[in-house]
């Protein structure tokens, strides 16, 4: 007995040491192999898609099943991030999860909620340089790649051509000064002074007027080189808030609030751009699908977002974000799950099929060049915006979109006149973001 105990201890230590060597980024020894051709496997795929969109995804999944008849896919839609996280915590995670909330990626990678794919990428020699840099940035966290991109969104200027013609404007604005001048020309008031048609609504929080969409156009950096919050030190933020206030003052905050309060919901048929109550707005490529379906008679066009004055050379880019696809912790068929992820995120055929069906931008350079990609008319500018060198993405952080809430809360206070000292306010925002992040260290 006395001999057995040390032997067990030594064996346990050896096992522990060996296990510590495996599972790290890039290690291939513990990677699950793809199931053999005669090994029948059923994998579960969760996504937030529903109805028509889910049908598009299912079609792409069917294409994978055709190539791998031994792998059957059970696709479940309407599964948001809350459900994915609960399933991971409860040990009932699906084999593959598609999330539309790329902001949560930092949390997923840091906590291991999504498994590290580095080893699989290395093993199968996946060429990541086929994915634009901005997309690679938002799909990994501090060097840990726990997801692959699956279609992206970028943002452009939507403008009502009929209203432009009426106001004698011949081309979309390229700078914020031009945007303001055009917005003033396009704005119409009711006899009581309330807004009838808004040239451009500058209210942060309204529709897709989000700081993450606005920031790149002003060169506003979220973090400095050391990864510290940099709202107070990046000049772009001061420019952004100053311009926003100037635009707000043109209308008057009260009038804007009354107008936005009465406007239709963002994705409903009575969206104020679709009803002709807003002449210009910032929105993603996905809006084209809504307009085509809900307001086919509106005459509109799209263009890259304007940039701050003095930043004309950076015209053409935008914020980029999108869906992420990964293998949650606790997945039962990891080998088969990776095969599916690799297929969906790197193979041109399913990417183009999904992009055409969902009206989102495909996430590989090969897919962007595919002749089968139907990005014509109002969708066409979004391909150029996506591949523009000035396009960028939000930083991935360990507490998800918490920094975005802190900054947006500040922006709301600012636009309602609740901030007297912009510089000091931005400094406070940096401090708060730093404190929030420290809670998880």
């Amino acid at each position, binding site marked *: 007995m006395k001999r057995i105990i040390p032997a067990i201890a030594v064996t346990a230590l050896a096992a522990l040491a060996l296990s510590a060597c495996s599972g790290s980024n890039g290690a291939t020894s513990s990677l699950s192999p793809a199931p053999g051709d005669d090994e029948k496997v059923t994998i579960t795929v969760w996504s937030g898609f529903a109805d028509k969109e889910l049908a598009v995804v299912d079609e792409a999944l069917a294409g994978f099943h055709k190539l791998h008849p031994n792998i059957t896919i059970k696709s479940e839609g309407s599964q948001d991030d809350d459900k994915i996280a609960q399933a991971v915590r409860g040990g009932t995670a699906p084999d593959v999860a598609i999330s539309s909330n790329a902001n949560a990626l930092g949390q997923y990678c840091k906590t291991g909620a999504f498994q590290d794919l580095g080893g699989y990428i290395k093993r199968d020699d996946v060429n990541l340089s086929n994915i634009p840099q901005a997309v690679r940035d938002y799909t990994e966290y501090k060097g840990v790649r726990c997801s692959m991109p699956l279609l992206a969104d970028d943002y452009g200027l939507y403008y009502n051509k009929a209203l432009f013609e009426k106001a004698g404007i011949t081309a979309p604005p390229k700078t914020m000064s031009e945007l303001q001048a055009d917005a003033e020309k396009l704005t119409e008031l009711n006899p009581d002074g309330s807004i009838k048609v808004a040239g451009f609504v500058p209210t942060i929080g309204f529709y897709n007027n989000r700081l993450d969409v606005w920031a790149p156009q002003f060169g506003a950096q979220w973090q400095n080189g050391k990864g510290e919050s940099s709202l107070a030190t990046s000049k772009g933020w001061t420019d952004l808030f100053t311009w926003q206030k100037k635009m707000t003052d043109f209308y008057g905050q009260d009038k804007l*609030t009354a107008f936005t309060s009465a406007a239709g*919901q963002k994705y409903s048929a009575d969206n104020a751009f679709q009803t002709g109550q807003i002449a210009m707005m910032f929105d993603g490529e996905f809006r084209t699908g809504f307009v085509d379906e809900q307001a086919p008679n509106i005459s509109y066009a799209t263009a890259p977002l304007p940039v701050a004055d003095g930043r004309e050379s950076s015209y053409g880019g935008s914020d980029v974000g999108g869906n992420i696809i990964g293998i949650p912790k606790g997945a039962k068929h990891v080998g088969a799950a990776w095969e599916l992820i690799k297929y969906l995120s790197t193979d041109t055929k399913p990417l183009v099929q999904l992009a055409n069906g969902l009206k989102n931008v495909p996430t590989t350079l090969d897919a962007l060049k595919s002749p089968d990609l139907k990005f014509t008319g109002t969708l066409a500018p979004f391909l150029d915006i996506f591949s523009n060198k000035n396009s960028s993405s939000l930083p991935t952080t360990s507490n*998800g979109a918490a920094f975005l809430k802190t900054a947006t809360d500040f922006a709301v206070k600012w636009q*309602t006149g609740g901030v007297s000292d912009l510089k000091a306010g931005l400094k406070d925002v940096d401090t708060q973001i730093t404190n929030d992040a420290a809670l998880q260290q």
Partner: protein
Amino acid sequence: MSVQNLSTAASLPGTPPGGSAARAPRRGAGRAARRNRWTVLAFMSPWIVGFGVFIAYPLLATVFYSFTSYDLINDPVFVGLRNYVFMFTQDPLVWVAIRNTAFLVVAITVGRVVYGLLAALVLTKIKRGSGVFRTLFYLPALAPPVAAALAFVFLFNPGTGPVNQFLALFGVKGPLWFNDPALAKPTLTILALWASGEIMVVLLASLLDVPAEYHEAAALDGAGAMRRFWHITLPSISPVLLFAVINSIIVGLQYFTEAVVAGAVASGSSDAVGNIASLGYPDNSTLTFPMWLYEQGFHSFNMGYASTMAIVLFVVSAVFTIILVRQLRATGATEEE
């Protein structure tokens, strides 16, 4: 052998004298007592198990997690008082959430109890069709919170809502309701009052239980309606009133779904209910304590900090409940008195 043992032995004929004989009946009695104890425990076991699993364990676990950094996926890491320090010194939104919740607790409690009592008093006077009116008053309580919040945001829409259109008929410019940080909480309170039919039903039942003879006797003595209400009705229904108050405090403390939905829809982003950007819209005026706790625990993966918030909420609400019950006991408003 002690005198006691001798006497015991003497009192039991047929048992041999000596220590063992003397202990036998006591052992029997002990066995019976033990058996009795096990029987009691067996009958109490469903409650004991339920209490342990659903109250004691979660409470103790929450206390433990409140001293940790815990993401619900990996093992918790002990961080001492860090979460408490963060809450009291570095999280401005927690104080906003506390203020909002305190407002809702007071407004909802006063509103529900007063509205419920007044409605119940009116219903006791109705002789014909009382069933219809009771149903009408109670019906809103059955409306799902999400549907109710959606309907209220539609009704109170500043531009297109029927409420402001009605006010416009009289030349009154309607306010922004859910879109105004100053009015968003009062509008939520109106929603809570509209759906407070269950309190009305409970108070109505207690009012109908007040013996009519008391009122008749007091009336003969010349007591007016107010005097009878104050000295007969109110003391008679005071235990139920206490229940109504505590129930309403709990409703206020747990206010969540309606606030989340109303904020998201009023912000124009009904597609993204629960999205961090529209949470508390407008200007965090509808951000309640449970919302911020949920956000921290399940979206920001700060379950350790969320546990800290839960403990503070538990302690504060326990203290207020104890004070309230003691005050009411002191004024003779509970059954024990």
